């Protein structure tokens, strides 16, 4: 509610500044022009939105599956932790620009290289949060399961996995927010469609209203993905006292 109020105030000020001639509309289009572009260019924006959304969602899925597998392997097997943990941290430092070129040469201009790049961006928060969550189990609960002779798998399923769920979701929400940034970067490295591609093309054509309209959609996509995970989190982690 407060966020909405703030947005309304900022938009009002922005609109006034452009109309009052303080800013060149070519550099900063008025919110009403952006809104008009959202409607007028809907046949261009719609398919591009779908493309970018597909890249972000598939990349997130890939990062979640791979991240969960690696976090669990690191948790269960100490040599794997020693071998993989530095690489997981290092994956965050990879400049996407450097990676994008060989990926596109390898996988072409289609969906595949984008999904890989989004997955790389999302992989770190997913893996590290799940891994830390699996380790941070209450020692008394751990002792209890040992006392009941729980097997390693039972301890993982009955205790560690549910205990790690809240922190795993923190990782997923962060990943959802950055997945869209990842998709845009991926499109900038070489693509023929998607909102990131559209932003780049419209900027070159000085179509600033369309550029901003695409940005608004990117923003909405990130918020929507975040919201999906926040909702799933609230449904799945129902045991926390309100």
């Amino acid at each position: 509610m407060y966020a909405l109020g703030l947005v309304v105030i900022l938009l009002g000020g922005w609109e006034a500044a452009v109309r009052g001639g303080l800013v060149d509309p070519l550099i900063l289009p008025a919110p009403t022009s952006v809104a008009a572009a959202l409607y007028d260019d809907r046949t261009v924006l719609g398919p591009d939105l779908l493309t970018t959304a597909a890249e972000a969602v598939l990349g997130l899925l890939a990062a979640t599956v791979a991240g969960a597998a690696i976090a669990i392997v690191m948790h269960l097997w100490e040599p794997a932790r020693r071998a993989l943990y530095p690489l997981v941290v290092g994956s965050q430092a990879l400049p996407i620009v450097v990676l994008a070129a060989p990926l596109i040469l390898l996988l072409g201009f289609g969906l595949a290289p984008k999904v890989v790049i989004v997955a790389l961006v999302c992989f770190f928060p997913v893996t590290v949060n799940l891994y830390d969550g699996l380790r941070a189990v209450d020692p008394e609960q751990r002792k209890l399961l040992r006392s009941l002779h729980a097997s390693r798998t039972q301890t993982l399923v009955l205790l560690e996995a549910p205990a790690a769920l809240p922190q795993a979701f923190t990782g997923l929400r962060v990943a959802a927010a950055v997945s869209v940034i990842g998709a845009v970067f991926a499109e900038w490295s070489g693509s023929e469609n998607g909102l990131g591609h559209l932003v780049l093309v419209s900027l070159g054509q000085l179509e600033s209203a369309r550029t901003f309209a695409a940005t608004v959609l990117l923003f909405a996509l990130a918020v929507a993905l975040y919201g999906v995970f926040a909702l799933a989190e609230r449904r799945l982690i129902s045991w926390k006292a309100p």
Partner: protein
Amino acid sequence: MPAEGVIVTTVADFHRAAAAEPPAVAGVRLDGVVKAFGDLPVLDGLSLRVERGETVAVVGPSGCGKSTLLDLICGLATPDAGTVAAAPATLMPQRDALLPWLSAEDNAALALRIGGASRAEARAAARPYFAPFGLAGFERARPAQLSGGMRQRVAFLRTLLAGTAVLCLDEPFGALDALTRVQMQKWLAEALRREPRTVVLVTHDVEEAVVLADRVVLLSPRPGRVVETIDVDLPRPRRRGDHAVADLAARALRALGVDA
């Protein structure tokens, strides 16, 4: 270092013995147990005997190795020297250690699930205990929705349903307010009357020990050793206010070096 000729049991030995043949003892027997964590000696030559069906309370200052003693009995730790022999034992850890994502009945039935029962079978086995344990209507409640006393009852039921001969209770009522604690002591005495087990009860409350136990074992400050054993030959049910209870509690405090 283990002294020469002393048998050191390991967790693996213990489980093998428990699985293969009837346990060598029906209760609990510790002889000359030494245990240290690094340079910190925790137990120093502790000997303890708990007969089958007996409730023994272990009282001592904080840090005297009471929890370590229970870990040894439950096979969660091995002694550096001395011998530990015990019938299969289940631990009720300090605080309740309930799993917050499981309902009360799933928490109570946890040992059965781990033992291989299906979720439905485990629940069906736990449910009949809810009414006599004062938990009727709370089968599906999550731990966060239960009061402190109810949580302890669920935790005790979980320990009981593990089905082992020996129950090791680690300060079961330590986190409760004074009123609830008195109610829970009465409740536990009644529950044990209905479901007799061999119980090792660790507590720092001498009156609680006297009310519940057949014998009270008093430990020295770390490293823990038995200072005195008090036989509680009082008829049940006992009450905290009774003269005989108060006298024994005062005697226990004096033996612990506290003037009451």
